[in-house]
């Protein structure tokens, strides 16, 4: 075995601009997709728990189809498949001086739609974990469903959903690597590009792995901290 330590340390400690841009893209795509996932997931969870049959059926179908197919297939389908069929073509656009390329948009949307299906299930279980009595009291006092959700149910569901949402975000962070197949220069594709010039695969992928380990571990630490804070604050109210 020959491990090029100097090269490894160099890549790890002084990563090039391209790699750092890739890191930035990885994180910002994950964040954008998470926002889409949260909003859309909440909507779909509401649909699944709502009365009208078509809405319920649509939500179930969505969750079933997205969770039943591989993300990689979804990504290619959305970026290349939709355009090939002439349904949807992702065009670059520029916002505040930042150009977001079509493939990045497609990647974010694919990741976001995927995330939404998982978020919907998390929200649904969170909402169902809220005591039925709370729903009844809100209804009995005359709150329409939207108001009941916003003021009574969701605030109480929040506690239950925080941890699974955090875990799901960790998965999302790692899933961003998949958009490398549609040409988004996130960390993985950048590593691949560097590799095709230097062929130090072992060292380069070790570095890539360590960067991901850092990202996911930082996120886990943040989650633990947030959880502890929440616990403390609730203990605060309990003994007030």
């Amino acid at each position, binding site marked *: 075995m020959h491990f090029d330590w100097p090269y490894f340390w160099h890549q790890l400690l002084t990563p090039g601009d391209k790699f750092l841009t890739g890191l930035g893209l990885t994180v910002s795509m994950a964040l954008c997709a998470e926002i889409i996932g949260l909003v859309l997931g909440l909507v779909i969870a509401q649909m699944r728990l709502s009365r009208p049959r078509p809405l319920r059926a649509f939500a179930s179908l969505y969750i079933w189809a997205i969770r039943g197919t591989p993300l990689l297939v979804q990504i290619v389908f959305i970026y290349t498949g939709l355009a090939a069929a002439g349904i949807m*073509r992702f065009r670059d656009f520029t916002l505040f001086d930042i150009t977001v390329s079509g493939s990045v948009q497609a990647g974010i949307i694919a990741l976001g739609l995927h995330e939404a299906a998982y978020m919907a299930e998390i929200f649904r279980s969170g909402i169902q974990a809220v005591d039925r009595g709370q729903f009844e009291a809100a209804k009995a006092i005359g709150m329409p469903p939207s108001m009941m959700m916003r003021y009574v149910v969701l605030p109480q569901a929040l506690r239950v959903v925080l941890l699974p949402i955090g875990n799901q975000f960790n998965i999302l962070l790692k899933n961003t690597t998949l958009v490398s197949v549609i040409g988004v220069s996130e960390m993985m*594709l950048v590593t691949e590009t560097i590799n095709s010039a230097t062929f130090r695969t072992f060292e380069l992928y070790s570095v890539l792995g360590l960067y991901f380990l850092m990202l996911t571990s930082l996120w886990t630490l943040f989650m633990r901290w947030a959880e502890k804070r929440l616990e403390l604050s609730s203990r605060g109210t309990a003994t007030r």
Partner: protein
Amino acid sequence: AGLPDAIASSKTLTFCSALSQPPLEFVDENQTPVGADIELGDELAKRLDLKTKWINIPFSGLIPALQAGQCDAILSQLFIKAPRLEVIDQVPYAWSQEILAFKKGSPVVDDPVEMSGKKVASVTGTTATVLLEQANEKLKAEGKAPITIVEFPTGTAAFQQLMIGQVDAYGASFEIGQYYDQHNPGEIVTGSKPFYKILTGIGVRKDEKGLSKALEEQFALMMKDGSYAAIYKKWGIESDMLDAPMPTQPAN
């Protein structure tokens, strides 16, 4: 030295190839590998009394796969370039030329630098990517907007993005562009002039001099008896033929 033991005992020569680069290597409707490189490889093996096996690997993964021992050689329009020669040996067998492929109706330019501010697709790890990056250096020095390079794992994906209109051009080899132009008439217009020409070779691990020697010898015989020319004529790329056999690179 003769052939490596593993090859001799299994009677099989395994090639790694990115099967998305017609007419050199691609798969037909029956999912069988076809193309000029494929025929060349099959013929070389036959003369060594070996069967062939083709493994489809994305271009950027070819050299790692060879190093990893997934195959005995790379036959995949792999240009002979200094950084590659540091890690593998290459047996020259043809020329290649680089062009920009455009969709019909788009303005055609001959120099990548003129794609300033536009989007150009390329395959990860190919020389086209490097050439586009060099063009960007130049553009940067001149204070012009750079080319947006969009990398794809396979030639197919890159070509498809061009067809769909998600990129303005595709940095490819002349041979690939010509093939698509012939097979999708009216869809593709190749860049009028190749802007880069380079020697192309079969990749072999450095510790298997026996194999490179054997390939080099058999290739010379193929040139002599005209079977080399026949393959290149069949696929319409005679312009890429070598004039005379060349020694394995790096020469030492």
